[in-house]
């Protein structure tokens, strides 16, 4: 799901029209070589809003439309492990036992490659790096109060 540009810069601006949004989605496909289908949200972010506005979420919707998994950040390993567990437990259970659904909520950790992230910000345009640095100062100030 292609949403909005999280760290726009001189080279990759934010969206001011649906045409620009489509161009951004094509850039994502071409530069990252994504083979999965890319769906493009509308300019106002209707679907993104409905699913919670975080920049890199993953959701798993079970057949029939029930939310099975939601994470406010994407970890491919975490999604894979969940799917393997979820599908196996649903379809195979010991004789005499029933599969009963329950919910979990967890904190997970991710590790960001700061050098790579900084390179990406510069690729978006120099101001994207400056703005992120200022955002970090704002977060530090927020954490101190």
């Amino acid at each position: 799901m292609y949403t909005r540009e999280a760290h726009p810069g001189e080279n990759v601006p934010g969206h001011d029209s649906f045409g620009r949004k489509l161009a951004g989605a094509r850039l994502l496909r071409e530069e990252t070589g994504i083979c999965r289908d890319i769906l493009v949200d509308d300019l106002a972010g209707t679907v993104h809003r409905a699913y919670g506005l975080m920049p890199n979420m993953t959701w798993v919707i079970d057949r029939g439309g029930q939310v099975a998994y939601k994470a406010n950040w994407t970890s491919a390993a975490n999604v894979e492990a969940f799917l393997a567990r979820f599908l196996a437990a649903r379809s195979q259970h010991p004789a005499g036992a029933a599969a009963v659904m329950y919910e979990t909520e967890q904190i997970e950790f991710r590790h960001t490659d700061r050098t790579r992230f900084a390179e990406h910000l510069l690729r978006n345009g120099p101001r994207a790096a400056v703005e992120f640095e200022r955002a970090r100062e704002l977060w530090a100030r927020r954490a101190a109060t």
Partner: protein
Amino acid sequence: MGVENRGGAASYNYSRFDDYVAGGGDLADEAAFRASPRAGEPAGDFTLLRLGDGAQVRLSELWQTRPLVMEFGSFT
């Protein structure tokens, strides 16, 4: 598209990340995630444009027979 919708799209598609954070946009996004459907609840169904072929695709068609893994993202 009405004036109100344009305003919504303009604030959604922010042009400066630092100003967005200064205005508490990131905190509002975290709150929106927490307020979104929980595990076990029905997911929102929408019709969207598929980039490859330009077709209009309904999410409920994609999760009709098997689970749908949906990653949200952008280039930047």
